[in-house]
C-alpha cells in the first residue's frame, strides 16, 4: 500500500501533501511543528481510531487520501465517523468504528481479524509508545498489538474461544485480588482490636450529600449522552450538506438539501437543545445544593480529628464478611487457570508453526547486523519474551526496530502486499549516528518496495528521499506541498 497524497481540511484551511512512493521525511528543525500529527493524520485517514494531538482535533478535520493498494488506485475521504472510498466510478461508505474492519479487509486483502487488529502495530511506530512496544502492548490510542494474535492470524489458526476465556479469568482474578487485599486489611484491623465504635458525623447530611452526588452523576451522564447525540446528528447533517444534493419540488423549483430543508431536522435540533438546557439547569441547581452541603460537612470535619475518616473506613471494612482463606484459594485457582490458558494460546501459536520460525529467522538476521546478539537470547522463544526491563533504551530501540521489520516481512509474505513503514522519530534519544545509519541501510537495502515515511528533527541518508519541511502550522490556508 502506498500513500500517494493526503489533503487536510480544517474549516477554511487546507493543506495537501504529495508523497513519494519510496522514502519520505517529515522534517522540522524543532519539535512541536506537527510531524507526529501529520503521521497520525495518515492513519486517521485510513480509518484508524487515533487520539487527538495537543493542537488538532481530528474529528473536526476532513482528510482526503489517495492510495495505491491491492484494490488499485482509490481515494478515501474521512469526516469524523464517515469514511467514503472512491474507486473509478464506484463509491463505498463506511461508518466508523463499526465498519473499519470491512474497509481494512479490502485495503489489506484479508478478512482475518487477528491480522487486521494487529496490523497497525507492525508498520507504525509511534513516537510516544512505539519504541518500547516489542511484542505486546498499546500501539496508539485504543489500537493494541499482541504477537500471539498476529501469529495466529498469519498462520490461520483460531484461538478466539481461549482468548475469550482468558479475558474472563483475568477480570475475575482482578476482582478477587482486590477482595483479598480487603480481607488482609480486615484481619489486620481485627488483630489490633481497636475500638470500632466512633463518634459519627451528622449522618443525615452525609446521606443527603450522597444522594445529591448520585443525582449529579446520573444527570452529568445524561448530559454527556445528549451532547453525543447532538454531535452525531451534526456530523450526519454535515455529511449530507457536504454532498450538495439538490432536489426538485413539484413546481420545478430546485431545493438544496441542508439543515433548513431536511424535514424535521430543525425540530430534532430544537428538542435536543431544550433537553440540554433543562438538564444543564438541573445540574447547576444540584451542584449548588452539593456546595451547600459540602460547606456543612467540611465545617463538621474540622470538629473531628483526622483519624475519624480512617476509623470510619475501618469500621466499614470490618463489617464486610470476607473469608480471606477462601478468597486466597480462589485467587490461586484462577492464577493456575490463567497460566493454563496462556500456555494453551502460546502452544497453539508456536506448535509446528512456520510463521514463528520465519519471524525468528528475520529477527536473528537483523539482530546480528545491528550487533544485538549479546543482548538477546537468540533462540526461537525470544520472540515471545516479556523481559524488557534488562534492556537499555538504545538497545530496546534497536530490538523494536528489528522485531517490526520481521513482522512486516511475515505479513507481506502472507498477504502478498507491501506495507508502508511509518516511523515517528526513529533516532531516539540514546541512539548514536552509526546505529541509525545501520538501521537506515537495512531499510534502503531490503525494503525498497515499501513506502517509508519518517518524521524526525534529523535527516537521514536514504535513497530517493523526499523531504517535507514543516513550518509553524500544519494546516495553513490553501497551501500545497508538492
Amino acid at each position, binding site marked *: 500500500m502506498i500513500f500517494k497524497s493526503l489533503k487536510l481540511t480544517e474549516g477554511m484551511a487546507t493543506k495537501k501533501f504529495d508523497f513519494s512512493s519510496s522514502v519520505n521525511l517529515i522534517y522540522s528543525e524543532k519539535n512541536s511543528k506537527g510531524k507526529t500529527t501529520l503521521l497520525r493524520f495518515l492513519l486517521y485517514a485510513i480509518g484508524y481510531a487515533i487520539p487527538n494531538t495537543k493542537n488538532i482535533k481530528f474529528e473536526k478535520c476532513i482528510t482526503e487520501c489517495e492510495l495505491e493498494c491491492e484494490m488499485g488506485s482509490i481515494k478515501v475521504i474521512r469526516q469524523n465517523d464517515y469514511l467514503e472510498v472512491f474507486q473509478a466510478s464506484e463509491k463505498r461508505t463506511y461508518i466508523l468504528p463499526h465498519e473499519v474492519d470491512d474497509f481494512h479487509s479490502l485495503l489489506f486483502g484479508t478478512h482475518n481479524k487477528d491480522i487486521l487488529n494487529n496490523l497497525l502495530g507492525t508498520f507504525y511506530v509511534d513516537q510516544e509508545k512505539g519504541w518500547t512496544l516489542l511484542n505486546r502492548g498499546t500501539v496508539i490510542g485504543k489500537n493494541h498489538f499482541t504477537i500471539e494474535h498476529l501469529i495466529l492470524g498469519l498462520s490461520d489458526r483460531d484461538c478466539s474461544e481461549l482468548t475469550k476465556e482468558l479475558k474472563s479469568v483475568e477480570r475475575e482474578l482482578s476482582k478477587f485480588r482486590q477482595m483479598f487485599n480487603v480481607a488482609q486489611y480486615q484481619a489486620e484491623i481485627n488483630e489490633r482490636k481497636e475500638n470500632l465504635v466512633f463518634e459519627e458525623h451528622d449522618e443525615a447530611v452525609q446521606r443527603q450529600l450522597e444522594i445529591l452526588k448520585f443525582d449529579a452523576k446520573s444527570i452529568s451522564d445524561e448530559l454527556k*449522552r445528549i451532547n453525543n447525540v447532538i454531535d452525531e446528528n451534526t456530523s450526519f447533517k454535515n455529511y449530507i450538506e457536504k454532498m450538495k444534493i439538490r432536489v426538485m419540488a413539484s413546481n420545478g423549483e430546485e431545493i438544496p438539501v441542508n439543515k433548513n430543508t*431536511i424535514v424535521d431536522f430543525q425540530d430534532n435540533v430544537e428538542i435536543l437543545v431544550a433537553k440540554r438546557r433543562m438538564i444543564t439547569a438541573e445540574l447547576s441547581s444540584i451542584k449548588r445544593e452539593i456546595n451547600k452541603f459540602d460547606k456543612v460537612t467540611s465545617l463538621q470535619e474540622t470538629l473531628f480529628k483526622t483519624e475519624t475518616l480512617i476509623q470510619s473506613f475501618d469500621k466499614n471494612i470490618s463489617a464486610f464478611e470476607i473469608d480471606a482463606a477462601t478468597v486466597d484459594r480462589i485467587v490461586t485457582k484462577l492464577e493456575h487457570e490463567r497460566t493454563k490458558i496462556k500456555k494453551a494460546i502460546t502452544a497453539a501459536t508456536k506448535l509446528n508453526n512456520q510463521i514463528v520460525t520465519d519471524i525468528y529467522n528475520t529477527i536473528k538476521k537483523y539482530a546480528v547486523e545491528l550487533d544485538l546478539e549479546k543482548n538477546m537470547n537468540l533462540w526461537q522463544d525470544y520472540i515471545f519474551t516479556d523481559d524488557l526491563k534488562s534492556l537499555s533504551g538504545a538497545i530496546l530501540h534497536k530490538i523494536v526496530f528489528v522485531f517490526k521489520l520481521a513482522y512486516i516481512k511475515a505479513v507481506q509474505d502472507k498477504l502478498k502486499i507491501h506495507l508502508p513503514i511509518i516511523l515517528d522519530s526513529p533516532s531516539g534519544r540514546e541512539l548514536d549516528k552509526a546505529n541509525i545509519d545501520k538501521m537506515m541501510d537495512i531499510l534502503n537495502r531490503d525494503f525498497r518496495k515499501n513506502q517509508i515515511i519518517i518524521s524526525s528533527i534529523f535527516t537521514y541518508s536514504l535513497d530517493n528521499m523526499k523531504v517535507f519541511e514543516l513550518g509553524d502550522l500544519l494546516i495553513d490556508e490553501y497551501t500545497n506541498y508538492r
Partner: protein
Amino acid sequence: MLTIKDDGGEKMSSSNASATLFGWDFQINAAIVLMLDNIQIAEQVRVEGDTEDIEIKLSNGKMLYSQAKSVEKSTDYSHVKDKLKKALTTLSTASENPDCDKLIYVTNSPNPFGDKKSMAAFYGHTRKAFKNLPDTCRTTVENIIDNLPNNTLDTDKFHVHVIPFETDDMKERYKVIKTVVDDFVFSVKPNLSGIGQQAMEIWQKDFFENATLSDTSKTIKKKELIWPLIVLMYDSNVPNNPILEIMDESDLYELTIKYKDLINNKVERFDFSTKIISDYKDYKPTNMKTKTIEFINLHWLDYKDEFDIDGVDPLIQEKVLKIIIDNIIRQKYLISDIKKKVCI
C-alpha cells in the same frame, strides 16, 4: 450586572432589597402570564426592556408594552395610586411608538385604583380593557393622563391586569401563575396533566435570567418557551398509549427504565428517526385509527438490522424496538400538534 431599582426607577437602599426582589418576582411571573395570554400572536418577550418592564413583540411586528407594579401587602392601598401614575407616565411614552399595539398595567393589588368602591371589579385574576373599567377608574386614568406633560396615551390600547400574588408562602404566591400555566398546558394538550409545576419553574428561571441581562436586545423567543414544554410532555406518562394494545403496561414501564439510554439514543438520532417517520408517512393503514399499531406490528422487523443488543433475548429486543418506534411516532405527533397550536 443586576441593577436594583425601585418602582420609580431610582436606586434603593439595601433595607428595601426584599421588597425589590418581591417586585422582580412579580414582574417575572407577570411576564409569563402575559406571554401565555398572547401565545398565538407573540414572537418574543423581554423582561426589563428598553422602555417598559415587560415588552412582547408580536408576529405582526407590533409591540405589547407593560408596566408591572406590585405591593407586598395586598391590604396596603397607600401607594397604589402613585404606582398607577408612574406606570401611566411610562406607558404614555411607550404609546408614542408607532409599533405600540397594547399598553398593559399589571399589578397584584386588588385595588389598583385606590378606590374601594371599584374593588369588586378586580376580584381574583382579572383582565380589563379601558372601556370595560368602572366609570370611576376610567375617570382616574383620564385625570392622570390629562396632567401628564405629554398626553399621548391612547386609552383604546390601555388594559388593566390584576394577578393575585402575595405572601411569603411560595405555593400560595404562585397559585394563580400555576393555574395560568396549567390552563395553557391543558389548552395545548388536554389529556396530559402534572407538568404545570415543572413548566412554571423552568420558565421562571428563564425569565429571571433574561431580566438580569443588561443587553436588552436579548429576548426569550416563543420557541424557547415551548420546546421545554414539549420535552416535559414527551417525558410524561401517556394515557391510552396505543402501544399498550400490544404490550403489558408493566413490560413497557420496566423496559423503558432498563433500556432508557438506548431508547433515547435511537429516538434522538436523526438518521434513525427520520427513516421511521418517512416509512410511517408512506404507510397506508387498513384503519387510520390503528395506523401506529399496524405500522409497528408490520414493520418493526425492517429496522432490526440497525438494532442489536448483545446477548439479549430476541423477544425483549423486539419489544424494545417497538417501544422505540412508538416513541418516535409519538414524539413526531406531539411536536406537530404543539407547533400548530402555538404557531411556531
